[in-house]
């Protein structure tokens, strides 16, 4: 099992150290294969996953009587995640061969991608929370490196830094949560934690605090309100990176974490409710922003935030199986959407603005049809993957009597269909709106790029059939599969007639959304402008992303400019402006605050020391 981890990391090391000596061909063979092998190992061991095997490698650390093993956990959850991660990662690696072909830092790119896959595997395979944190931080590191991959673009470097900062804030909570678990449970092992919880030793209040602290980390990594701001900016990275890290794998780590520690979350209704509300709120909110964005990748970014909101929502209401199911389906169709968008951008020579696209259907049929499938899947049209997974989440929320959340979920589903088909219609239908020059160059992407698209399209179509709604098949494959990892099992009564009605409703909603999009963007193309003029306020609100960036700037950044000294406010500008640009603003506003004392004049130093000494002696005398 250790080989699953070994291959990606070795390949990454080799590429980092010796990449520039290697031939491009070798790199493009070497790197995907080092991901394919773990995938194959995963498949071969898939049926063993039911036995909950722990592969002890060695004792890593021991603090007092807490032993932390370097051990891999192979159970149903990690097996599913490993297959998803390695599978999608492999396809994206193959895709990148075509996409990054012209890039001069080719080996570096693959080195980071392999390293990312390694850390992601550490995250999902870890048997204890410390190792999970290692993976958690590691994927963050790679994400930062890959967002800033095109460092010539200043915005890219800035976006990388922003991602990093925002995640730091979440990680602070996560780290404290881990310490708290260690303190309470006296063990970092997931099995121990879950058995500790299920034996009722953990007070509910403690579980609530831990749950909320860990969720703070999840809001950072999984881009939930309020820490979602980094993900849209992260689209500055190359598109395969967006597909792998910022859609399929890393950003879902928060959901994985919640499901992994489902014992704790099941114990505490408060924390779970917070999780569910934040999730559904994010889902709705991000969907409204996605409606008006014009950058193709930005739409997908907000769509990702929204879909992860669904998963977090599902995890919050206790539908852990549904959460992971949607996570995997989402990985398929969202990776497909991103790769399709990448294919479009590739063909358009780097243009991402949808207002300059249109009519691409006849130029790039493969991309179009695969993209369409992904669009149908994400909108939840019956028969496609997204339909089953989203339906399961909504049905769960309905039957668990979270009716208000359910309504918001349904509305979000309508918005989802609307924005994704707005994207499809604006991009592939209508008259071409690009320059003649660009139009002349449009071409279908090479085979290495289209084959992964086709495979993902197939998965997005048939993937959903592993978990059919209960009224169709009594024994859902997925449900019995996931039941093994859930600590507190609940039985929810699904009434079949209601369920059928619900299914019909959500199918209707999806088709309605597509119809509205068709009406607005194909049939009556003048209408959207009229509408947006009429509802100028709302349109502008959404287009400008509810001014959240500006609000953050106002709340966090401006006070600094006007001289506030609070650490966090100070931070945003210090880091975003000062560190990224390495230049003036920071030293102008805030850096001098402390280094002011380091004036270079000996007299100042000596006053410093004498004052310090006197203060210390005062504290001492007062404390006697």
């Amino acid at each position: 099992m250790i080989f699953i981890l070994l291959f990606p990391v070795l390949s990454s090391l080799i590429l980092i150290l010796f990449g520039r000596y290697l031939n491009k061909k070798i790199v493009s063979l070497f790197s995907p294969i080092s991901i394919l092998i773990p995938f194959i190992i995963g498949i071969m061991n898939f049926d063993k996953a039911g036995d909950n095997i722990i592969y002890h490698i060695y004792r890593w650390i021991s603090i007092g009587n807490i032993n932390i093993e370097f051990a891999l956990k192979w159970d149903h959850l990690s097996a599913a995640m490993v297959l998803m991660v390695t599978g999608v990662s492999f396809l994206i690696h193959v895709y990148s061969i075509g996409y990054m072909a012209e890039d001069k830092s080719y080996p570096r790119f693959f080195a980071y991608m392999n390293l990312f896959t390694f850390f992601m595997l550490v995250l999902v395979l870890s048997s204890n929370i410390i190792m999970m944190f290692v993976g958690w931080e590691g994927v963050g590191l790679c994400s930062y490196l890959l967002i800033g991959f095109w460092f010539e673009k200043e915005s890219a470097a800035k976006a990388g830094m922003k991602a990093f900062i925002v995640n730091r804030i979440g990680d602070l909570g996560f780290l404290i949560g881990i310490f708290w678990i260690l303190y309470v449970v006296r063990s970092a092992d997931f099995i121990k934690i879950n058995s500790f919880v299920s034996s009722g030793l953990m007070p509910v209040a403690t579980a609530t605090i831990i749950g909320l602290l860990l969720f703070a980390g999840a809001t950072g990594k999984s881009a939930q309100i309020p820490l979602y701001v980094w993900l849209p900016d992260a689209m500055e990275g190359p598109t395969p990176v967006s597909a792998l890290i910022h859609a399929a794998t890393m950003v879902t780590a928060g959901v994985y974490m919640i499901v992994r520690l489902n014992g704790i979350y099941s114990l505490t209704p408060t924390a779970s409710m917070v999780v569910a509300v934040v999730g559904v709120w994010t889902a709705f909110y991000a969907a409204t922003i996605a409606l008006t964005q014009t950058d193709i990748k930005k739409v997908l970014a907000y769509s990702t935030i929204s879909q992860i909101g669904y998963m977090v929502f599902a995890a919050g209401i206790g539908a852990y199986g549904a959460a992971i199911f949607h996570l995997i389906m989402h990985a398929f169709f969202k990776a497909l959407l991103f790769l399709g968008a990448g294919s479009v951008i590739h063909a358009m020579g780097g243009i991402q603005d949808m207002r300059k696209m249109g009519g691409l259907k006849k130029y790039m049929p493969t991309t179009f049809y695969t993209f369409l499938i992904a669009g149908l899947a994400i909108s939840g049209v019956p028969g496609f993957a997204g339909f089953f997974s989203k339906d399961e989440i909504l049905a769960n929320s309905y039957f668990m009597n979270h009716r208000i959340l359910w309504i918001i979920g349904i509305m979000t589903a309508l918005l989802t269909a609307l924005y994704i088909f707005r994207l499809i219609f604006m991009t592939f239908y209508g008259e071409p709106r690009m320059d003649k020059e660009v139009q002349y160059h449009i071409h279908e992407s090479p085979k290495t790029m289209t084959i992964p698209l086709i495979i993902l399209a197939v998965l997005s179509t048939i993937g959903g059939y592993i978990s059919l709604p209960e009224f169709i098949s009594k024994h859902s494959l997925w449900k019995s599969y996931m039941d093994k990892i859930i600590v507190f099992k609940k039985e929810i009564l699904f009434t079949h007639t209601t369920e059928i009605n619900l299914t019909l409703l959500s199918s209707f909603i999806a088709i309605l959304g597509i119809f509205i999009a068709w009406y607005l963007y194909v049939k009556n193309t003048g209408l959207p402008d009229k509408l947006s003029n009429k509802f100028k306020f709302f349109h502008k609100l959404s287009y400008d992303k509810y001014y959240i960036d500006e609000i953050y700037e106002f709340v966090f950044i401006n006070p600094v400019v006007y001289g506030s000294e609070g650490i966090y406010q100070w931070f945003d500008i210090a880091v975003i402006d000062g560190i990224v640009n390495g230049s003036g603003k920071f030293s102008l506003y805030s850096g001098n605050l402390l280094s002011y004392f380091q004036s270079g004049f000996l007299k100042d130093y000596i006053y410093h020391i004498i004052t310090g000494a006197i203060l210390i002696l005062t504290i001492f005398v007062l404390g006697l």
Partner: protein
Amino acid sequence: MIIVYGSILIALFSFIIGIAIIISKRTLIMILIGAEFTLNSVNLLFIAFSKLHSNAIGQIFVIFTLTVAAIEIAVGLSIAVLLYRKHKIKSIEDLKELKR
């Protein structure tokens, strides 16, 4: 006994004077004199304590401190000479290249 407590007070007082000299003077030589002042006031303190405890250990300490003071002057003067001869620096105000 009065002598002992009196000399402790004098020693502390002259220690503060020594520190004050170090803080207030700007030329390198005066700073060294201030440093010498503090060391010797501590010497006095040691001797007073030695009298207080009526053992000779404190006086032994003084011998060593005197040696250290001598080294301090030697090193300090050589640095002062280096700064003046090579870089024409007399006052500590001129030392401002390294900062922030």
